[in-house]
């Protein structure tokens, strides 16, 4: 049923995957349109908040504080959730988390589950595991439904199907929902999804979700959504199973007053998203599921926690603002990143979730322009983490790659004035065979060898001038001295 999941362990390198995406005109048009719309909306609702920067700072401090005391807050959450009738499970990795969820579903005797959009369950490829166990998962978020029915993969954290346009969605719905006629207006398509899913909501007795925030103080869980599919899955089934990364915990209910202002404005450009649900364990008077399980999953998050410079990656609240702002993401879309976490946050999160054994090209998938840092609601300095990870990749690859040797040589040059001068002279000599004069008599290079060839694919390079600045300066000093005499 579902397509081949995005898996960083087997994905091609970013430059190779990006090359394929750049040729997809329709995808690029769709991505450019969607990110443009969200960016404009976000800018408008952020602009109207006089205390936006203060909220960002508070958000950063809350997240930083939580990570510093993660063990404390997770245990507090566990205790309060359990007291309220929830069952807390712990998972060291994706495999263990899948095993727990599949086991719980099977214990219910369920053959179907309804699911709320959840990046965490995408991360652990839960649907594939459920299907292998003979359980059919119904994705109920409109975008996730489009992805699932189209055997596609999510390309954005918040709007996973933004790479599809209405005509493409209509085609998928018509085929998969067996509809004779279907209009192609977004309203027609949303109505079709409503009809298709309503019957599932009323029938299926087991729900599976992720979580936006776990509230340590109360043992409550908060989910932020738009369509109401989340409320359906959280309210109507008899059993609810929630999978959450251990990074999702927040200390107190009060802290939500910061995060619930930052998240919707950053994610979808709304003042508040249509629905936030908060529930605590199970309700004794029959409001909502009678059984509630929550799986607290590590899956390499503690590795990130142990790296002081990488740790801020865990502050992420999954708003996707960095993706919309990123000039690289807007050219390639999300699939090029080979992971469910795409864009700038994906470029730092994915390699770290793989302990840098895979996805080594992702830290380089950025021009370090800083647009991501500028919009991040909890002030994750993504460029700083990218540079940190590049250093780790370099160390992992060792000192003998052609690039490392070239860098070492350049390093020696910059450490000595004499060598620097010599290199400037040598550069002029070395480039000479490549230089061609243009109509204005200016020298240009139109082709470069090896590693540098990427530059001259679409760009010329101006030849080095005959005199460096320092040579000019010295000449001037000399003539001034002689004039002084």
């Amino acid at each position, binding site marked *: 049923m579902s397509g081949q999941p995005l898996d960083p362990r087997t994905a091609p390198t970013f430059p190779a995957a*990006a090359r394929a995406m750049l040729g997809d005109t329709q995808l690029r048009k769709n991505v450019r349109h969607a990110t443009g719309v969200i960016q404009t909306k976000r800018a408008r609702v952020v602009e109207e908040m006089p205390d936006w920067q203060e909220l960002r700072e508070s958000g950063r401090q809350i997240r930083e504080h939580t990570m510093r005391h993660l063990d404390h807050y997770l245990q507090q959450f566990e205790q309060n959730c359990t007291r309220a009738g929830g069952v807390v499970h712990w998972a060291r990795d994706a495999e263990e988390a899948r095993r727990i969820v599949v086991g719980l579903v099977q214990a219910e005797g369920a053959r179907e589950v309804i699911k709320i959009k959840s990046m965490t369950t995408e991360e652990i490829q839960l649907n594939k595991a459920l299907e292998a166990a003979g359980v059919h998962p119904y994705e109920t978020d409109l975008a996730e439904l489009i992805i699932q029915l189209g055997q596609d993969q999510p390309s954005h954290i918040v709007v996973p199907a933004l790479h599809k346009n209405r005509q493409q969605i209509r085609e998928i719905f018509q085929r998969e929902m067996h509809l004779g006629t279907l209009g192609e207006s977004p309203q027609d398509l949303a109505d079709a999804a409503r009809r298709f899913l309503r019957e599932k909501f009323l029938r299926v007795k087991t729900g599976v979700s992720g979580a936006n925030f776990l509230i340590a103080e109360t043992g409550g869980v908060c989910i932020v959504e738009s369509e109401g599919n989340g409320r359906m899955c959280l309210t109507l089934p008899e059993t609810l199973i929630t999978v959450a990364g251990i990074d999702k915990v927040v200390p107190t209910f009060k802290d939500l007053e910061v995060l619930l202002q930052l998240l919707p404005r950053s994610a979808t450009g709304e003042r508040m998203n249509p629905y936030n649900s908060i529930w605590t364990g199970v309700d004794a008077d029959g409001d909502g599921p009678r059984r509630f399980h929550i799986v607290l999953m590590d899956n390499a998050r503690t590795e990130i926690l142990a790296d002081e410079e990488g740790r801020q990656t865990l502050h992420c609240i999954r708003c996707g603002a960095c993706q919309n702002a990123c000039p690289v993401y807007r050219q390639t879309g999300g699939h090029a990143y080979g992971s469910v976490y795409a864009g700038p946050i994906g470029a730092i999160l994915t390699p770290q979730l793989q302990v840098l054994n895979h996805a080594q090209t992702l830290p380089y998938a950025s*021009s370090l322009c*800083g647009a991501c840092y500028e919009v991040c609601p909890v002030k994750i300095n993504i460029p700083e983490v990218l540079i940190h990870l590049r*250093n780790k990749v370099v160390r992992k690859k060792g000192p003998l790659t052609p690039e490392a040797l070239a860098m070492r040589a350049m390093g020696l040059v910059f450490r000595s004035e004499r060598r620097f001068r010599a290199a400037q002279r040598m550069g002029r000599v070395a480039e000479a065979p490549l230089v061609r004069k243009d109509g204005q008599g200016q020298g240009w290079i139109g082709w470069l060898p090896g590693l*540098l060839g*990427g530059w001259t694919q*679409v760009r*010329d390079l101006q030849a*080095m001038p005959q005199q460096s600045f320092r040579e*000019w300066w010295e000449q001037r000093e000399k003539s001034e001295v002689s004039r002084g005499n």
Partner: protein
Amino acid sequence: MFITCYNDTLFPETGKAVVRVLERLGHTVEFPAGQTCCGQMHWNTGYQAEALPLVARFVAQFRHAEAVVVPSSSCVAMIRDHYPKMAAELGDAGLQAEVEALVPRVFEFSEFLTRRLGLEDVGAYYPHRVTYHASCHGLRNLELGDGPLRLLRAVRGIDLVVLEGMEQCCGFGGTFAVKNAEVSSAMLAEKTTAVLNTRAEACTACDNSCLMHIQGALHRQRTGVQTVHLAEILASEDTGSAGAAR
């Protein structure tokens, strides 16, 4: 003045222009000969070990300067955002103290004029249609804001036109342009399209690195549009014979 390695080698005219402007304003310019590179390329590409020794070299060259003027925002960002941390990493308390004392005296060229000297009009004359690209490091790391634009607006004879998507990255990003050449090209295509749409004769910025990137495509496409560093515009004077854009 810290000219920076690539301006020294590839864009001496920018250095000369900085000297011209500063001397015109009555300042004395010194050029410590031992200067080389700030270490940005190594640092940003992941070769931190190669970048670390350059901190001490920079301090040794510039410790006595009243102000260090640098015609490159990305190099200033490197010094301002990373040198304190790098000095700490080296574990040299003396160096750390010197970095701390020196960094507040390091200015990007336009920043030195607008913030340190409080100037907008530096007596320049440049009778050309020009558009301005806000380079990422200048915009986001140094928060130059509209400083460069205010300097440009005060230039006599200039026809300054707004660049659509002025704050969008041109796709250079140092080794990014080589490692991810295709994506970089796609980003560059948007930038050059915007530049051409302004019908400007020249595109200016505070960073020759971005300009070299943009110029590379403008030249390959034979557009006839030039790039010129902000310092060179500000250095131009009315000599009776108006020169062409660079």
